[in-house]
C-alpha cells in the first residue's frame, strides 16, 4: 500500500464525513462501545477495531451555560448523544435550554467550516 492510500486519521475522517453532510461516530466492533471524540483506540480499554457508523442525531442537554460578552450572549452545551458519548455543541434558536431537553443534531457552517449544532427536538 502506498503512503497516499493510507486512511485519514480519525479526526480528519470525522471532519471529512461532516463535509459530506454525514454525522458519523466510531464504534468498536467487538465491544459495541461508541467513541466520541474520534480516536485511534477506545479510551480505557484500548480496542482498535473501530468502525464508523451513522449517529442517530438524538441527544439530550447534560449541562449548559450562556457566555455573556459585550458582543452578545451565546450558549455552550454539553450534550449526551443517544449512543452514549458526550460532546460540546450549541443549541440553536434559543438563548438557553433546560438540562434534560431533547435535541436533534444538524450540520451547520460555523465560520465556514461544517460543525454539528443541535435544535430542540420539539421544534424540529
Amino acid at each position, binding site marked *: 500500500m502506498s503512503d497516499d492510500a493510507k486512511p485519514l486519521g480519525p*479526526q480528519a475522517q470525522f471532519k471529512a464525513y461532516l463535509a459530506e453532510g454525514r454525522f458519523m461516530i466510531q464504534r468498536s466492533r467487538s465491544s459495541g462501545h461508541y467513541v466520541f*471524540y474520534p480516536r485511534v483506540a477506545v479510551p480505557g480499554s484500548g480496542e482498535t477495531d473501530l468502525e464508523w457508523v451513522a449517529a442517530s442525531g438524538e441527544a439530550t442537554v*447534560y*449541562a*449548559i*451555560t*450562556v*457566555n*455573556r460578552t459585550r458582543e452578545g450572549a*451565546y450558549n*455552550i*452545551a*454539553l450534550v449526551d448523544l443517544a449512543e452514549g458519548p*458526550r*460532546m*460540546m*455543541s*450549541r443549541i440553536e434558536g434559543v438563548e*438557553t435550554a433546560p*438540562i*434534560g431537553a431533547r435535541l436533534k443534531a444538524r450540520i451547520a457552517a*460555523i*465560520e465556514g*467550516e461544517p*460543525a454539528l449544532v443541535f435544535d430542540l427536538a420539539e421544534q424540529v
Partner: protein
Amino acid sequence: MGASLRGAAAIVGVATAGTGEAPGRTAIELLGEAAIAALGEAGVALGEVDGVFAATGTHGVPVLSVAEYLGLRPRYLGGTNVGGSSFEVHLLQAAMALQAGLCDVALIAYGSNQRTAGGRLVSMSEPQWHETPYRPRNPITGYAMAAARYMHQYGATREDLAAVAVAARKWANRNPQAFARGPLSLQDVLMSRMVSDPLTVADCCLVTDGGAACVLVRAERARDLKQQPVYLLGAGAAASHRSIVQMPDLTVTAAVESGARAFAMAGLRKDDIDLLMLYDAFTINTILFLEDLGYCPKGEGGRFVSSGAIDPGGALNVNTNGGGLSCVHPGMYGLFLIVEAVSQLRGQAGQRQVAAEIALCHGNGGTLASQATAILGTQAAL
C-alpha cells in the same frame, strides 16, 4: 502504600512576592523574589538548591527558566504541569526525591504577572479541536457548566454559590495581604455582572499578579533550621479528563481519589484536619471539594456553606487567607494554598489565625481536571 513518605520531608521556608498588583515586574522576577525570600527565611543558601520544581502559565520549560534565572545546576528536575494543582504534586515529588537522595534541597516556585500584563485569567488550554467551533471561554465555561449541572441535580441555588464568595471575603477582611477586601453581601454577589450562567464575576477568582515559593528538606535537617518545620504527612493526585467534555460526572471530581490517597498516606481521617485550603477558582469548587473530600454528603454542599459552616467561626476553617476568590489568584493558585497552610501551622497568621496542627491543601487544575491533595502538619502531628 507510600507510608514511608509520611513525615520524611518538611517545608522549611515559604514566601510570596508581588501578590495583588506588581506593575513593572515580570513573572520570573516575582518568582525569583519569592524563591530568594523563602530560602532566606529558611536559612538555606541559594547554592544548596539541587532540586527544582516549577510550573507557570507563561514558560514553555519553566524548570529550565527558573534554574537559569537563579543560577542553579539542579540534579533533580521536577516540572510536572497539571495546571493549578501542580504544586501539590510537586510536594509529593519533592518528598520522594529528597527521600531517595536524588536531591537535598527542593525548591518549588511559581510566578505570574497576568494582572498587569493583560488583566485576563491565563488559560491553561491549548484549543481542543472538538470544542473550538462553539467558542468556550476556558476555564469559566467548564466551571459554569459544572455549577449548572450541580444546581440541576441537587437543587442548589445561586445563593449557595454566593455564600462561598461571601465567606471568602470575610476571611480576606482579616488578611492584610488579601487583594479584595471590604464588605461583600450575598446580594452583592447575586447582583454582580453575569459572566457565564450561573456564575457572576463575583463567583470567579481574582486575576492578580504574584510569585510564591517553598523550600523542602529531609526531616532530620529541617529540625536544625530557622523555622518551625511543617511536615508533609501525605499526598495524592488524580486526573479525570483534559476537556470538560470528557469529565464523566460534572458534580463529582477526582478529589474523591486524591483525597483518599492523601488521607491513607497520612494515616488520618477527615476530622483530624484543622484547616482546609481548597482551590476556589470559582465558587462551585469549594462546594464540590467539601463533598468530594468527605466533609458533607454529595449534594449537601450548597446547604452546608449556606449554613455558615465555612464562615470565620464556623464548623470548618476553610480558605483562611480569603482564597482565590478574595486573596490572590495569579493563574495558578496551588502554591498559595501551601503558603497559607504553613503560615497557619506556624502560628503566623495574625488576625485570621486558627488553632491548627494539621492542614489539608487541595489543588485543582484545568477545568476540574487534575486534583491533588497534600496534608501538612507540625511536629506535634508526626
